[in-house]
């Protein structure tokens, strides 16, 4: 499984891997133009393949006000 962490929402999700970032986001219901996706100190492109067992962070970039 791939662990998706959403630090701002304090939420986590597990999805089966391996899969591309864009497919993981689609399944999690997240629009790609609203987030950046990181794995440790690495920034991932939306077509990057994520291996099973990995943990990635999905960071919202939308600021309000």
């Amino acid at each position, binding site marked *: 499984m791939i662990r998706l962490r959403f630090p*701002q929402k304090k939420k986590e999700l597990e999805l089966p891997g391996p899969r591309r970032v864009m497919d993981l986001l689609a399944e999690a219901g997240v629009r790609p133009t*609203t987030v*950046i996706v990181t794995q440790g100190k*690495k920034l991932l*492109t939306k077509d990057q393949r994520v291996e099973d067992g990995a943990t990635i962070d999905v960071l919202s*970039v939308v*600021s*309000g*006000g």
Partner: protein
Amino acid sequence: MKCKRCRRAEAVVDLPSHHAAFCPDCFFVFFRRQVTEGIRKLRLLAPEDRVLVCVSGGKDSLVLWDVLMDEGYETEGLYIDLGIDGYSDRSKGKVLAYAASRGKTPIVVELAKEGIPIPEAARCVRMQECAICGTVKRYFFNRVASEGKFTVVATGHNLDDETARLLGNLLHWQRDHLARQHPLLPGAGEGLVRKVKPLWRVSEVETASYGFLKGIDYVTEECPMSADATSLVYKEALSRIEDRMPGTRIVFYQGFLDPSNPLRKAPDAEEDVGTPPACASCGAPTFTETCSFCRLKERVRKARSLRAGRVAG
């Protein structure tokens, strides 16, 4: 995916709106070029400017400060502590840490000490926090800039912010706002300092990517007061469109800024109104007898004394 610029390194940022993907080094070049082109095209800044950069601790303003310093502008940071429990301390911590890493000490205005912390002020006058925050921030941006002899105030508004605002203004046919909406708001006389938005060409994904790759530690949590902000509704609508039709946002905004657009007035075409009259209460430039900040402060003061009277009675 390989970087579209150097064609050697692995890409880490993909930008469908530009049909491009970049490795970290090439993305830095691309991003800085976007910002400097945005400054050059609209003549936002001159090399001799003293720039007051308004920093909130979020990604956009810290990235803006970072790029302007790297580009050689003379800058100082201004942080306004809004007095929001927990959030303000955390965001101030990020600003101070970033500033220290660049050998800077930001100017800090504490609204609690000024007698107008945002959450309490909003409760007192029964207004939306964001509306009050805008009035208060604009007042201090100008006051600090004016007192500190800065020639320009720079804020971190990006393409997503500006297009959300444009969509809102269009949907409500806010003709006055449309006429003035621009990354350059000219100053007036000696009291009103020019304001610029140098990040108008870059998206939130781009500023967040730049901040992450540069190791800028910004506050990622959202302001707790902004959960109901209408700008978020417009941003969501635009991001749905952008996902399906990449590049729409920049076309939308650049088309709006086109000098031939009859909806808006170019900043250099605006009449020089000279030095505006001074507020009867604080002396700040205003076109009304008392400035909006002093009127707000007075309403808060009255509400406070009314409440104190009720408690005492």
